[in-house]
């Protein structure tokens, strides 16, 4: 059967107590080595032989990576914060509700209890549900190794399907982004084959900032699961800027997003479906963010 061996291969397991200990360990261990957070993606991948690690470094004891903080207008989320914690955190719900909405849409309750934001980023799945909202929030990631830390935009860190800029001796320790200002609103919508335990077919995150008169000052529209990594829809964003939202504008923007998506999808087998379905997703998310689009 396709050479699939569904047994976890042997490895050495480490459970450092501090971040310093963890990065030291990673600096010294030979490859192949992997960092273990929630494990919901890594374990099945290791059983199927899609991922090999002779040394597995668990982050479980690093409670310092489990914090959610709002400091100087910046939201800081530790890598070990789970989907459930994101979905239910009053701080996240207030400062960047779209991230809470995306977290609540992941897998089922069991996976949300276990999977982490750090894992979702490093796994770099094209359908990773936290990635579009983090793109829309223009998040940066913090990556640590022995003797150093780098902070870089998530949009640069994510390279494509399963690929990021992380080095084998590095640990992604968290993300940081500006909390949404008062006059901004955001939302996330996901289309999948069923409501739960489902991988996104298409997702979209939107952050829209309004002027005191209600005009749209700025828009960040990000699509998920239509390419190897999330993509912005700059043409649609430009259409929105400086306009007052109404149903006519909504349909123009939806059409523009559909064009952007069609261009990305090319002639992939899912293209005929996604080209049409993305319109529904876009309409839904824009109406959630700005109810005036429907009036």
């Amino acid at each position, binding site marked *: 059967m396709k050479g699939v061996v569904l*047994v976890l291969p042997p490895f050495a397991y480490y459970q450092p107590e501090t971040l310093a200990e963890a990065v030291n360990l990673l600096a010294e261990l030979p490859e192949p080595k992997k960092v273990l957070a929630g494990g*919901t993606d890594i374990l099945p991948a290791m059983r199927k032989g899609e991922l090999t690690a002779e040394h597995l470094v668990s982050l*479980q004891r690093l409670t310092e990576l489990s914090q959610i903080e709002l400091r100087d207008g910046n939201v800081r989320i530790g890598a070990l914060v789970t989907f459930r914690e994101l979905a239910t955190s009053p701080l996240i719900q207030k400062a960047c509700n779209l991230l809470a909405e995306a977290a609540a849409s992941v897998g089922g309750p069991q996976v949300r209890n276990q999977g982490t934001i750090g894992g979702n980023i490093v796994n770099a799945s094209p359908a990773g549900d936290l990635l579009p909202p983090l793109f829309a929030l223009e998040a940066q990631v913090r990556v640590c190794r022995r003797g150093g830390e780098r902070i870089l935009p998530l949009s640069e860190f994510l390279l494509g399907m399963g690929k990021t800029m992380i080095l084998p001796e590095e640990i992604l320790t968290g993300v940081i982004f500006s909390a949404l200002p008062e006059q901004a609103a955001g939302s996330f919508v996901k289309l999948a084959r069923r409501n739960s335990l489902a991988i996104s077919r298409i997702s979209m995150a939107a952050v829209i900032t309004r002027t005191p008169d209600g005009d749209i000052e700025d828009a960040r529209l990000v699509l998920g699961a239509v390419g190897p990594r999330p993509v912005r829809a700059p043409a649609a964003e430009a259409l929105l800027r400086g306009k007052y939202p109404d149903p006519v504008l909504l349909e123009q923007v939806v059409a523009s997003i559909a064009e952007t998506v069609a261009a990305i999808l090319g002639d992939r087998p899912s293209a005929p479906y996604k080209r049409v379905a993305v319109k529904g997703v876009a309409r839904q998310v824009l109406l959630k963010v700005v109810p005036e689009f429907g009036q």
Partner: protein
Amino acid sequence: MKTVRFKATINNRPVDLLIAPNRRLLDVLREDLGLTGTKEGCGEGECGACTVLLDGRPVNSCLVLAPEASGRRITTVEGLAEEGRLHPLQEAFLEAGAVQCGYCTPGMLLVAKALLDKHPQPDERAIKTAISGNLCRCTGYAKIVAAIRLAAARLAGGKGAQAGSGCAKEQKGPGLPVSAGLRVVGKSPPRVDGVAKVTGCARFAADLKLPGMLYARVLRSRTPHAVLRRIDAAEALTLPGVVAVYTAADIPGQNSTGIIVKDEPVLVAIGGRIRRVGDPLALVVAESEEVAEAALAKIKVEDEELPAVFSALAAISAEAPKVHGNSNVQSVTRIKKGDAEAALAKAQVVVSRRYTTQMTEHAYLETEAGVAAVENDLLTIWVSTQNPHYDRREVARVLGLGQHRVRVVQAPTGGGFGGKLDISVQCLLGLAAWKTGRPVKMSYRREESIIASPKRHPFVIDYTSACDGEGRLLAVKVRIIGDTGAYASYGPATLKRAAVHATGPYEVPNVLIESFCVYTNNPTAGAMRGFGVPQIAFAHESQMDLLAQTLGIDPFTIRLRNCLKTGSLTATGQCLEAGVGIAETIRRVREKARELKMLEK
């Protein structure tokens, strides 16, 4: 590999073990601690059957590396009942009929417990969210939701729990006494195996462990159509822990199975034909499942690939590669009543359409599994099955034994839906136990279950219907082509039933129906809920809607005008003498639809 310490509190008891780090929490619970109430359904966190509570929160134990659960508080289904008293959730599941096959039940109970511990009065939405990570293939979820509501109400009422205590007492019994007789007619007696299923005590086949037990795994073909030339197991046999590798040459009796046609080999013979991806080629028997799996990768197979056919429509053409013999048409059913062609030629309205339906996997939560053991020259097989008597006959034939020397015990079966009517592990387990003289267990991984198990037949249906100006059916002409895949399984019967039901619940004076059961190199199709009828119902009901649309009449009216009634003659000429309920059913559906404002009028 260096072991690590696993020290945790499981069901309020301390546990302290040394384990290899590459174990899942699920494996440690089931294998090291014997807590087999926690089930494996998919191994990927998609089904929730392996749910346990970790510090009070549900997680999939197949996705938790065991060392990560060290130092934590773990609750499994075995920890729900306290001092022999069922938890109110367990009682409610029994009373509400939320337990059927029982395989999803432990996981469902645990997510429900986690919910009620935090939110004692959840609304329906909260309940549905709580169970949204758990699949159930039997109940349709409604009874599970009802059971959780019931338990919540009881727990909130405090004393209200008394309402259920009497019933719970009844359910704690070992089952109904035979003498209960007619006293249960008209009542809802508790399931005989209900208590075992809500407490995690029910032993499904994969939960069984016998002393000295070996583990078997099947090497399967990767090519869809080929002649098997060579199997070289020499390297696999050198692996420590491998006991034997069996091939077709080791089968003492008939190397064939099949409920209707004996066309499927137990193991493909050298020089014999591989007819689908997943055909069994060799059986590895080893001291552990890990070793058996590792040995599979060491077996070398040489085959000579043949052109394959993957569509039933292509398979009926003369040039198509032949899967068996010199025709891919396994069986044909023809039903003729009156003169359909003549009626079609004269009819006012004629609608013709092609309908295609897809292959469907049953996806029972419990994969195929069994244990076989020999004692006093008697072979016993405990197996997840829907067909123990057939299993016994086939195992006896394959091993060349009298049926009196084979005993098949149906283990609690975690869903079947028709998919466990065929042979899966039975004959191979019998062979392994008979040859080695030791107990042998085999349980399919989900991937293997999907590759190896029979499916619902995909159909291509050409359907022509004719009616008069008032929508009265005059004739139907139907051609059904069913793809039975590599082996017949229940195909001939499924296609026959589809033909017999092709007119639906309608009286049609002129009928011409032909159905073909066709071999291809696709996965085998067999029995699945409805047995050919759901596919054809999709076609005849779509046709009724199209006729109604063409005539501009109401879809209920056209159905009522044509439906079978007492005295009607069916397509096969049967006169229906009593108990024809379709008109009443349609009327009730219309009433309900109106009540729910689903109709415009």
